[in-house]
């Protein structure tokens, strides 16, 4: 029999946990679904690190544990709305089993992922996402004594460097592509109204002391024999090499909006649009946290509580938090303009540099394509299991193509499903004959 809940929350990061706990305490029957083995999302993953927020994490996890039905390790792969008594059904999957759950209201708290940009050597073993390496360390990877270059852009580079240092790694350099002039303005803006953020920033200072923090520079190549051994860093004019055992690289964050798009929620400039109660353009579907704008943990917690109260009909309580949320939102906007990507990063990938890692599509074969769809059909770019989650945002930056329209299942476990989708695409565009021969 299909289970049903007043509210289903997808994503158990700070935003999702706050929404679930708040709604449950207001009397709703709530279920939370998350694809990781334990609750916590990106920041409260595992037990290592993040001392500064451990107390907050414990508090929210406890509030959820007693009142909410928790489905860890389950991935939301599809959802349909408008079926009879219930507003919608969520399809979840784990270990090749499928379970449908009905909901009256839905909160999307799907968070964000790192943006990866292709450059020569980025597919070498030993090159990890910056947040990715942090996640590996939180889930048991031993990096003690390893030399690591941390590069890309965003405040995450500092957080990751602090965590890696704490775990015994030797940070060779932190390479931030944003120019110092912009970073300096950012710190100043922190001083104005966000004391908490400033303290957080200073907290990372201890571990970054003594480590070169290069600004206005970027990695233009990683090389090594079967594993990364060195990276080349440039400022455009000067070039230098660093010997390293690992490269941790990420270009700030992009929102996970695939489920929202599947549900036809309006999305603008990469983020889900919401009203003051966190409701999306689709009635009864709310969105909170990084998916509405990259803005950190406090923003996620506030939005989660607002959505939880709103879904439970406690609009008075939701409204009380709106001003604090709006302050966080303004901070988020400044944050994102500070770490805007420089155009030089568009020129790093050579013709032979792989852009789509699933299908090994080199950059050179994409140059003649005009749209994502064309690239997909002619080169198989984005046709692999990640469904363009890595190369889609990269080609959006490189070529200005629209991001791919998601389709169910959002995360394929059966690779044959993809082959079928591809055939369907090819057939509908009439190029089957040329691509299949």
């Amino acid at each position, binding site marked *: 029999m299909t289970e049903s809940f007043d509210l289903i929350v997808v994503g158990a990061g700070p935003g999702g946990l706050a929404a679930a706990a708040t709604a449950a305490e207001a009397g709703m029957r709530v279920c939370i679904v998350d*694809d*990781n*083995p334990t609750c916590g999302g*990106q920041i409260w993953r*595992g*037990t290592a690190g993040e001392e500064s927020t451990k107390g907050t994490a414990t508090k929210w996890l406890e509030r959820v544990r007693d009142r909410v039905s928790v489905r860890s*390790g389950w*991935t939301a792969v599809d959802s349909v709305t408008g079926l009879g008594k219930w507003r919608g059904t969520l399809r979840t999957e784990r*270990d*090749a089993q499928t379970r449908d759950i009905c909901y009256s209201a839905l909160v999307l708290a799907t968070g964000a*992922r*790192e943006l*990866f940009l292709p450059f020569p050597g980025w*597919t*070498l*073993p*030993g*090159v*990890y*996402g910056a*947040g*990715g*390496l*942090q*996640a*590996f360390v939180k*889930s*048991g*990877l*031993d990096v003690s004594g390893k030399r690591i270059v941390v590069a890309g852009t965003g405040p995450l580079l500092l957080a990751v460097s602090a965590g890696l240092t704490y775990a015994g790694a030797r940070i060779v350099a932190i390479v931030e592509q944003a120019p110092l002039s912009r970073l300096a303005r950012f710190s100043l803006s922190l001083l104005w109204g966000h004391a908490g953020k400033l303290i957080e920033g200073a907290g990372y200072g201890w571990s970054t002391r003594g480590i070169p923090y290069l600004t206005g520079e970027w990695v233009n190549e990683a090389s090594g024999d*079967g594993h990364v051994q060195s990276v080349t860093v440039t400022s455009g004019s000067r070039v230098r090499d660093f010997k390293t055992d690992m490269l941790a690289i990420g270009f700030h964050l992009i929102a996970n909006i695939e489920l929202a798009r599947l549900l036809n929620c309006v999305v603008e400039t990469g983020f889900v649009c919401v009203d003051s109660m966190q409701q999306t353009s689709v009635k009864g579907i709310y969105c909170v946290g990084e998916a509405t704008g990259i803005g950190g943990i406090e923003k996620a917690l506030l939005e989660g509580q607002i959505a939880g109260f709103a879904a439970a009909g406690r609009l008075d309580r939701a409204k009380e938090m709106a001003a604090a949320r709006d302050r966080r939102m303004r901070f988020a906007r400044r944050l994102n303009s500070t770490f805007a990507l420089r155009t030089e990063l568009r020129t790093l990938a050579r013709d032979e540099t*792989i852009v789509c*890692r*699933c*299908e*090994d599509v080199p950059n050179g074969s994409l140059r003649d394509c005009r749209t994502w769809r064309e690239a997909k059909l002619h080169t198989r770019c984005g046709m*692999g*299991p*990640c469904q363009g*989650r*890595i190369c889609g945002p990269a080609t959006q930056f490189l070529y200005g193509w629209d991001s791919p329209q998601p389709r169910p299942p959002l*995360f394929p*476990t*059966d*690779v044959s499903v993809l082959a079928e989708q591809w055939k369907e695409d090819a057939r509908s565009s009439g190029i089957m004959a040329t691509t299949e021969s």
Partner: protein
Amino acid sequence: MHHEQVMDTCFSITMNGKSLQVRAGTTVAVAIVQSGSLSRHSVLGEPRQPLCGMGICYECRAQIDDLLHQKTCQILCRPGMKVATE
């Protein structure tokens, strides 16, 4: 307190036919990297290892027991688990 005790427990899994000691709480992707294995070879035969650590890129996919193409960065090691990379 309880949590730390659990983290300190070690057990063994099988990685490509060889026994490997891991701590409780270790994800399979981490076990792959820690053992020095690759997770897969790409379409053109390039060696690959996990990238994103958060279930997005599929570079960490491997066979766990009877299930193919599992995203190992989102699965914890269990005692006796058999992992096969490509």
